[in-house]
């Protein structure tokens, strides 16, 4: 049972720095909690109302008292031990809820104060941090984890400075997951040099050399910054859905972008990804039909090599090895980057089918 204590004016119930395990309720009289504001050092006097609890945080959290509890007028105070308080709270949920609200406000306040002292705006760190987390998982061949994190990056920072890179990594993660499974296959990123590690709060997080992943065109990207169109956001949302294997939803979102026809860059991307969705849904015929449409209407599509590769895969899935081979061979005959992922994939697929 909680005990009632009687305190004379000018006495002290507890001192700052005391280790205390009691939680108090003021029943009668006046008590003031005196402490120095951690930001300004100014002395604060917080008057406790009758019926109000005090000493809760330090008792529950088992840390030293943070204030002097000074009696201003003769007072009766009910003192709970922590187990007594816990028992009491079981039948007084409202009081706990009220405390939760007060504490969550205090937490928000102190968190903001801490934030203001940090050397870097957290937002910048968070963006690079998220990207690097995805990169870490990809490098560690934890493809499904990489896919989640990179998908989130693209959802939150569709116009972020690593968006293009994240998109490519996401593709690699998906491909590796499908081909090898988590934890298997060749290292998708070259060792630990892919990007230099940095502490969460260190300055120069985004200004470091960034490893081989930065290209000059990407570096120029941030200028578009926040003004990036709604289409881009919709597009990356769809990519995120795709990465979560929500292919039907992704397909719907992509179709809306493709049909909108506002921005040719994203229309082209969306059309390509619609085909990937169909393929992921094992709709080989629809995928082939869809991609054939793109090949005819947009022969200079930037993702042509990948389109032809997936068409080849679709034929392969349908059991038509001859057509599959023809498409893979077509990928290899295309001009351009020798090391493009589509070429490498096509070469492998062709070998698997017993050569050209």
């Amino acid at each position, binding site marked *: 049972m909680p005990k009632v204590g009687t305190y004379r004016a000018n006495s002290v119930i507890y001192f700052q720095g005391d280790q205390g395990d009691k939680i108090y309720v003021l029943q009668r009289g006046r008590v003031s909690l005196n402490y120095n504001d951690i930001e300004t050092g100014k002395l604060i006097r917080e008057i406790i109302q009758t019926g109000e609890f005090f000493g809760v945080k330090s008792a529950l959290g088992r840390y030293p008292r943070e204030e002097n509890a000074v009696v201003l007028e003769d007072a009766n105070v009910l003192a709970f031990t922590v187990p007594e308080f816990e028992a009491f709270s079981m039948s007084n949920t409202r009081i706990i*809820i009220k*405390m939760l609200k007060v504490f969550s406000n205090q937490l928000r306040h102190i*968190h903001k104060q801490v934030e203001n002292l940090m*050397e870097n705006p957290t937002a910048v760190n968070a963006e690079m941090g*998220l990207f690097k987390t995805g990169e870490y998982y990809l490098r560690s061949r934890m493809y499904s*984890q990489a896919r989640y994190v990179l998908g989130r990056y693209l959802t939150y920072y569709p116009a972020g400075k690593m968006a293009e890179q994240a998109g490519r990594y996401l593709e690699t993660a998906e491909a590796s997951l499908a081909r090898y499974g988590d934890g298997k296959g060749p290292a998708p990123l070259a060792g630990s040099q892919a990007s230099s590690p940095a502490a969460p709060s260190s*300055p120069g997080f985004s200004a470091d050399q960034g490893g081989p992943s930065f290209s000059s065109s990407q570096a120029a990207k941030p200028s578009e910054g926040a003004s990036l169109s709604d289409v881009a956001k919709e597009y990356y949302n769809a990519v995120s859905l795709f990465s979560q294997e929500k292919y039907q939803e992704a397909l719907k979102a992509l179709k809306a972008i493709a049909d909108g026809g506002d921005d040719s860059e994203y229309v082209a991307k969306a059309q390509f990804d619609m085909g990937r969705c169909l393929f992921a849904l094992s709709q080989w015929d629809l995928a082939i039909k869809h991609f054939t449409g793109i090949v005819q209407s947009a022969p200079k599509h930037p993702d042509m090599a990948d389109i032809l590769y997936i068409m080849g895969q679709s034929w392969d899935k349908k059991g038509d090895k001859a057509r599959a081979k023809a498409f893979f061979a077509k990928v290899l005959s295309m001009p351009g980057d020798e090391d493009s992922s589509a070429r490498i994939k096509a070469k492998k697929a062709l070998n698997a089918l017993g050569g050209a």
Partner: protein
Amino acid sequence: MADLAGFSRFARTYQSGEIIFSEYEPGDSFYLIQAGRVRITKIVGDIEKNIDILSAPEIFGEMAILEGAPRSATAIALETVKVLEFNRANFEILMMGNPQIALRLLKVFTKRIYDQKRRFMILTLDDPQAKIADVFLMLDETQGSTVPGEQLGDKREFKVTVDDVAHWAGMNTAEVQTLLGHFFNQHRVELFPDHIVVKNINDFIRFVNSKRKK
């Protein structure tokens, strides 16, 4: 535990290996574990560090109460995990009928407020070397409250890396490395890959106090 059956609309299931949320992701939900274990990890430098393994009925992700603040760690399902997912707007509904959970969350907030205040005290020191020393004092205070009595005189061992210290001190790793090097040359600390030894914690207390006085 009280009736959680009515909260099925908040129920989520994660498969083994599935990420519940990622470090740095803006967070607006927090979770109560109902079944299964959750691994809390952080990527420090090039290593994924396990911070904690949680099971029912623990709460995690509670800093989402700050709305949109980036997650400070990653939560991954260690096996099939069932959780209740809440946010700032709807957590009261759950707490109302479940005082045990409310009390648990209250204790978690208590701890977080203390952590943040203590962090604030570190960050307001002007002297970078004192900041680092104060990080160890903070670690000593929090470790001390969980393992009372078990201390080896003035010597303390901390299971932290330079990156951890840098994180707490709000400084960059290189600078912390250099300053820890000074402490090492003065025979005040010993540095190991996975832990740091402070040879005389009272020496650090005096040092920090001398720098704190205005």
